[in-house]
């Protein structure tokens, strides 16, 4: 006889109801789920057994004897049944994995209302390095799992969302503009969890795309029950987190004298005396005290605002569920006006349904974004200049804030105070860029449960983006005879900006299909096996069309037609395919010993026949010692040892094996000669020499580790050691120009990296109303360059344009910063030239490498009743980076280092001059007595005139300590909420990037920012880029 049994399932930990608990009648297919308030209802025969199960909790069985059965589930303290998402989106028990695995949940991702999926995880996960390379909302996030091992290929992880690879293009971005990477588009609110597969054993199943690790994102699904509405809203104020600090002793001028029109701080000491400044217009001039203006640079910026609103409705029946969500991001950044505005809308639908043995899961997402971005670095020569370069060139006594009135008589195009730079607010208001993107991604996932141990699965994914960007530089021509047009005291004329318009269109597509069989069978009490076998077909590529026209005919009108020049257009298509066959099997023995073997064979379109099929094996072992030995004491609750080996690869891009011609574009150094020239077409031999013998890059990865939990799980330790070898690097190796080529694309070189990751979790305090969780992560990674092609002593990874280089050298740590250094005589004296400046040695010297000694994260959460306070500190220690900001900062005499010797004449300490014979050969040295005069002090700090020492001021310590995040949340009382019809509500305040501590040698720039992209090259440093941001906000989350 059946009766209806109802009840509530609560958590033993906090007494709160648990939604989504599966309630099943043992021995039947009948079942139910608890609703949002933990309630369930099921019809069962008297005396049958109800099984209550939920991930992370110990399964409980209760015999149905009453009509109301309330159940309290306790958390699965031994981590034995924790289910995590692994490669290909397969759920597996964490204890069976023979490699390190970190999962983060929605709550951790959204704690500080980051608008990017991974932006809220900085400093929280060992071996996952997350940085925002530009301060702009909508800009790129750089994610590197462990370290860099590919010299010139990609080091970005593969992003997989609900089992389907995501296209992570950064279309249109370059050193000047960062329009954001596509992985940033995912609505963080819609994410259920993210798994990081850091090593090759974990990612081997992804074969030739798994070599940099995989970020596996699983989105939320609806749950059976009445519709549940989730609403969250956050408002965040942004401001500049760190700006350079100029010296405050010497004011405007050059060569030690006050000069009205100069853009440097090489004038006399500040006197405080009221003096005229700036241009003379109609015999009138402005006056102000000749003194250093505090907070001048910071006042160049405003506060920004970021709004993040999300609403979702979810629900369903036992057979079908749905989830619809909408996320809106609206942001206006710290620059005055709309120059850095960003809007994003995400619409998502997720539905599941099942019918008999069939089930289906559909996910559809549409993302639309529009953003304005401000140019960083140097503007295109001859066309225009950038805000950040111009702001650096304002002496400390000129009020930057006043210059915002850029049409004012004294600050306009004709009468800006200097002919050597432009009013930055003219740049900000008259130049700009607008990026637009429409993107669809999603998948259909069909399952057929053939038997109770075999499921057939087919999944089709698509990710298609249509995007475009427009970049404009307005024209301006200083009037001849005006202050800027030559009437200034030095007679200099500022180069006009001729203006330009660029229209870009990009299409990116990625289609991914897979058919696989999954099986799971227990053979005896001792053995069980689960696994899969499948085939995958991936088709991806891009089309781009870029047109640019220079010299605007009508100022302030931006269209490709608006010029006497014809637009220059380029089109690029990329297309590649990959077929993969894969299998994976896990053999379990008595629930404590697991052996997993994986294998994948990829066939790629990008390599020549005979060279394009590769096999990637992997194996891992997990041994749950505590279970094997039957630990029962509370001191050591869980011990697991793991070991793994995996091989992965890195696909080559398309069109890299056959030699080609290129449309002729001959570089002049500044400017080009481009064909068609004078109506004649021209093609030249491509400077890159290709070979059909190219192979994919290959990675072999060993990993050892252990998980330990002590003191009734109050203390936990996860330790991982890894060693990774990357061979057959695809290198565009520079070769001697006399070979007829600039470089040759070949496989060569070997990099190894090794490192360790430690995660320590502790709950020092745990009472009924106070709980303090502490989480500490430590990681250290060292990448070494083992070998390079014969005859090649270094591979240049990036360069600053003045002579500094970022290189890989055999036998050295990856990423050396090499730049000119002084030449020394045999006794170690600095050799100076006849003018008294140090001579640069013939060969560049090494200033260090970019790699941190270690990265540490401190995470704390203190919960007091319904309040939770969390904060995260990150300490990155060691390493060096190049700063193009520092270069200009020294040139204009703003760096405190330029006040050396109070700017009095000096002789370079411990220096000698060469004695030459008639042929110019060095025959000896004599003591140097040539002074660097007061008037030449400035030349001592400029790259061109003192090449030998410039980089000693531009290459800085990369260390920092940052207070990444502080959050305070309060869960509103249920009784109060019930009156509002809500089941759950949380209010919170938070701050991100609140405090930045930099070492004493760096007054200039946050080492995390870069405008050199998001890969290895970006680790060289930055070139006059935007400052990082600080965020303060408040959020509200309500569930109805």
């Amino acid at each position: 006889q059946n009766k209806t049994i109802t009840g509530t399932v609560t958590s033993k930990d906090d007494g709160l109801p648990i939604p989504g608990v599966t309630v099943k009648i043992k021995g039947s297919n009948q079942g139910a789920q608890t609703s949002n308030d933990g309630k369930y209802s099921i019809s069962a025969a008297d005396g049958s057994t109800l099984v209550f199960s939920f991930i992370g909790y110990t399964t409980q069985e209760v015999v149905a004897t009453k009509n109301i059965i309330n159940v309290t589930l306790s958390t699965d303290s031994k981590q034995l049944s924790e289910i995590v998402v692994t490669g290909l989106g397969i759920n597996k028990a964490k204890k069976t994995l023979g490699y390190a695995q970190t999962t983060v949940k929605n709550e951790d991702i959204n704690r500080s209302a980051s608008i990017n999926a991974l932006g809220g995880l900085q400093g929280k996960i060992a071996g996952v390095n997350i940085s925002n390379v530009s301060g702009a909302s909508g800009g790129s996030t750089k994610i590197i799992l462990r370290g860099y091992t590919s010299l010139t290929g990609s080091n970005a992880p593969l992003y997989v969302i609900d089992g389907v690879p995501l296209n992570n293009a950064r279309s249109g971005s370059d050193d000047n503009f960062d329009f954001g990477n596509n992985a940033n588009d995912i609505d963080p609110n819609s994410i259920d969890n993210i798994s990081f597969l850091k090593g090759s054993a974990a990612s081997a199943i992804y074969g030739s795309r798994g070599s940099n690790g995989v970020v596996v994102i699983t989105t939320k699904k609806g749950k059976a029950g009445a519709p549940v509405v989730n609403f969250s809203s956050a408002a965040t104020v942004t401001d500049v987190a760190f700006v350079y600090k100029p010296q405050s002793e010497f004011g405007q001028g050059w060569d030690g004298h006050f000069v009205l029109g100069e853009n440097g701080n090489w004038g006399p000491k500040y006197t405080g005396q009221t003096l005229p400044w700036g241009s003379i217009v109609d015999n009138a001039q402005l006056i102000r005290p000749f003194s250093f203006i505090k907070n001048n640079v910071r006042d160049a910026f405003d506060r920004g605002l970021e709004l993040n609103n999300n609403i979702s409705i979810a629900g369903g029946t036992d057979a079908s569920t749905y989830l619809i969500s909408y996320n809106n991001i609206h942001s206006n950044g710290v620059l005055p006006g709309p120059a850095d505005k960003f809007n994003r809308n995400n619409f998502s639908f997720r539905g599941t349904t099942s019918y008999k043995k069939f089930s289906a899961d559909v996910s559809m997402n549409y993302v639309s974004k529009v953003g304005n971005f401000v140019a960083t670095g140097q503007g295109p020569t001859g066309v225009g200049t950038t805000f950040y370069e111009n702001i650096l060139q304002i002496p400390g006594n000129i009020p930057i804030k006043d210059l915002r009135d850029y049409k004012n008589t004294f600050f306009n195009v004709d009468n800006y105070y200097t002919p050597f730079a432009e009013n930055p607010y003219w740049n900000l208001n008259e130049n700009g860029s607008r990026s637009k993107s429409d993107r669809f991604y999603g998948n259909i996932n069909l399952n057929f449960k053939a038997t109770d141990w075999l499921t057939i699965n087919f999944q089709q994914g698509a990710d298609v983006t249509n995007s475009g960007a427009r970049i404009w530089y307005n024209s301006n021509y200083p009037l001849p005879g005006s202050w800027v047009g030559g009437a200034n005291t030095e007679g200099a004329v500022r180069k006009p900006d001729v203006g330009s318009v660029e229209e870009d269109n990009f299409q990116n597509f990625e289609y991914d299909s897979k058919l696989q069989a999954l099986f799971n069978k227990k053979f005896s009490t001792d053995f069980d096996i689960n696994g899969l076998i499948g085939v995958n077909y991936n088709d991806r590529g891009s089309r781009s069309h870029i047109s640019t026209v220079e010299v605007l005919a009508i100022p302030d009108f931006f269209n490709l037609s608006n010029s006497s020049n014809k637009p220059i257009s380029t089109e690029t298509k990329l297309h590649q395919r990959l077929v993969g066959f894969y299998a994976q099997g896990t053999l379990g023995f008595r629930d404590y010993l697991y052996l997993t073997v994986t294998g994948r064979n990829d066939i790629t379109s990008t390599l020549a026949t005979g060279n394009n099929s590769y096999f990637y094996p992997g194996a891992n072992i997990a041994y749950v010692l505590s279970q094997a030995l039957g630990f029962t004491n509370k001191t050591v609750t869980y011990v697991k040892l793991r070991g793994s080996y995996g091989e992965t690869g890195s696909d080559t891009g398309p069109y890299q094996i056959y030699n080609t011609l290129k449309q002729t574009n001959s570089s002049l150094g500044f400017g080009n000669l481009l064909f068609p020239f004078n109506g004649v077409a021209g093609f030249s031999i491509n400077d890159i020499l290709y070979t059909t013998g190219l192979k994919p890059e290959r990675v072999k990865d060993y990993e050892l580790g252990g998980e330990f939990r002590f003191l009734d799980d109050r203390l936990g330790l996860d330790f991982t050691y890894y060693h990774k070898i990357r061979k057959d690097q695809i290198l565009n190796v520079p070769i001697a120009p006399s070979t007829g080529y600039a470089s040759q694309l070949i496989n060569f070189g070997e990099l190894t990296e090794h490192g360790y990751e430690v995660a320590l979790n502790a709950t020092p305090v745990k009472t009924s109303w106070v709980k303090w969780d502490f989480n500490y992560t430590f990681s250290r990674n060292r990448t070494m360059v083992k070998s390079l092609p014969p005859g090649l002593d270094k591979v240049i990874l990036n360069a600053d344009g003045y002579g500094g280089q970022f290189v890989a050298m055999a036998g050295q740590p990856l990423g050396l910063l090499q730049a000119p250094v002084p030449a020394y005589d045999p006794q170690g004296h600095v050799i100076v030239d006849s003018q008294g400046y140090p001579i640069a040695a013939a060969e560049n010297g090494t200033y260090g490498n970019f790699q941190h000694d270690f990265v540490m994260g401190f995470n704390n959460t203190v919960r007091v009743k319904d309040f939770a306070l969390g904060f995260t500190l990150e300490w990155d220690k060691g390493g060096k980076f190049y700063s193009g900001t520092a270069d200009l900062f020294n040139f204009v005499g703003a760096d405190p280092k330029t006040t050396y010797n109070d700017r009095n004449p000096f002789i370079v300490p411990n220096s000698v001059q060469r004695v030459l014979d008639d042929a110019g050969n060095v025959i000896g040295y004599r003591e140097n007595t040539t002074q660097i005069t007061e008037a030449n002090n400035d030349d001592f700090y400029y790259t061109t005139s003192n090449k030998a020492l410039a980089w000693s001021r531009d290459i800085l310590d990369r260390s920092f300590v940052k207070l990444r995040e502080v959050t305070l949340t309060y869960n509103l009382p249920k009784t109060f909420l019930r009156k509002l019809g809500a089941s759950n509500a949380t209010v919170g305040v938070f701050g991100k990037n609140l405090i930045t501590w930099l070492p004493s040698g760096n007054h200039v720039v946050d080492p995390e920012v870069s405008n050199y992209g998001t890969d290895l090259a970006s680790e060289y440093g930055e070139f006059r880029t935007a400052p990082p941001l600080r965020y303060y906000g408040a959020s509200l989350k309500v569930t109805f």
Partner: protein
Amino acid sequence: CSKINDINVSPNDPPIEKATPQVLFPSAVMSTAGQVGGELDIIGGIWSQYWTQSPIANQFKTIDSYNLQRQDFNRGYNELFAGALADYQLGITKAKEAKLYNFYLMCTVMKAYTYEVLVDLYDKVPYTEAFQGAAKLNPKFDDGFAIYKGLIAEIDAALATDYKGAPFVGSSASTDFVFGGTMDYWLKFANTLKLKMYLRMVNTHAAEAEAGIRALYAAHAQFLDTDAGVIESSDKVSYFTDVTDQRNPIYAYTVFNLGGNDLRASKTLVSWLTAHNDPRATVYFGTASPISIDQGNYTAPQSAQPSYYSATAPAFKATDPVYFLTKAESHFLQAEAGVRYGVVSAQTEFLNGVTAAFAQYSLSAPADTSYQWDNTFNSASTARKIKRIIYQKWASFPNSHALEGFFDQQRTGYPEISDVYSTNPLYTEDTRIDPLHPINHSGQWVYSKNGVTGGRFPKRLVFPDSERSRNSSTPAEVPITTPVWWGLPNK
């Protein structure tokens, strides 16, 4: 059946197998022009003391102080080898295959011209083992003299073909920016180039120089009577236009992109032009009385040298042509051959040269002995004749042909080196006691005020890092002040 990698043929760039001389040749010519008339023109112009670095900017301080090192001039070398020369070489191969002997000759002459620039700047470069890609990653360096002989042999081989019989199909004559497909001019350019190369050898290979020049005259070789360069030979209209990436290289580089605040008139050239009332001051600097800066004195503060801050910039225009070998230069070369070997009337050729040099700018020469060669001067010493020729050449090269002035000085010693710096009043004081031997120093070269080579002038470039660090055959570095193989020895 289609294979998965069938899609791996680039839709963006044509396969190298489809290369034709018609697309390679104009590309390579513009690559040569872009360097010879661009970055190398800047070095040539500063080192020939036409221009100097302005104190209000910084870009060319390393050049003006003779402080160039192996990292400084990679681009020009790379572009000339991997850009221009590799394309000429493939153009030669493709032209021979297609029996397009006209393109074979055009590519060969331009290859020789471009190679000569490299040899003259670097002394030695790879030649016999160059352009072999992966087959020869460390090509050996050949001696400059051997390369000259090789180039002359290559020119002779191309001249021996039926290059006049090969047709220009369709509009392919327009791919010849130098002579528009007029093969007679290519023959003359080839001969004049050979003459120039032989004259380079006079200091160190006098016998070969004389034999080669006598052979040219014995064969009644015709020499250039028009300008060779990126210029329409018929109407002297340049192919450069004031349009994106189609501008004259030195204009694009120094004015359009850098803003024109760097180069200023050098006292050395201006003093000479002024001393001779040379109307080309207006051509070179846009004014009949340019304000100049003493060579390399860019660190002088405004208080000490206020006039430096109103110094005149070179009058580069976007539409200026780039010259490879001018008509005037051709006549001056012939005049020098006449002086040295009597193979032609030096007097006639000199006067033709002066006329052509001024005609180049639609001007006529001033009445000053320096521009004349009367019958009495025929009895002057060889040295005085050469001096007069070379001064005229030097004064004809500013704008886009400046490198040649630098080479001539190293070869002949003219203009001489002044024993006073140009700030010294003696430099320009005209005390003509003997009108034929003014002690006026105008035009004589002065050592850069900020020179770092201890009073020695630069004579060459050092091998760039791009070659040195990748080619183990690169010879040991020699000082920038060491003469190249044909240069006058340091005193």
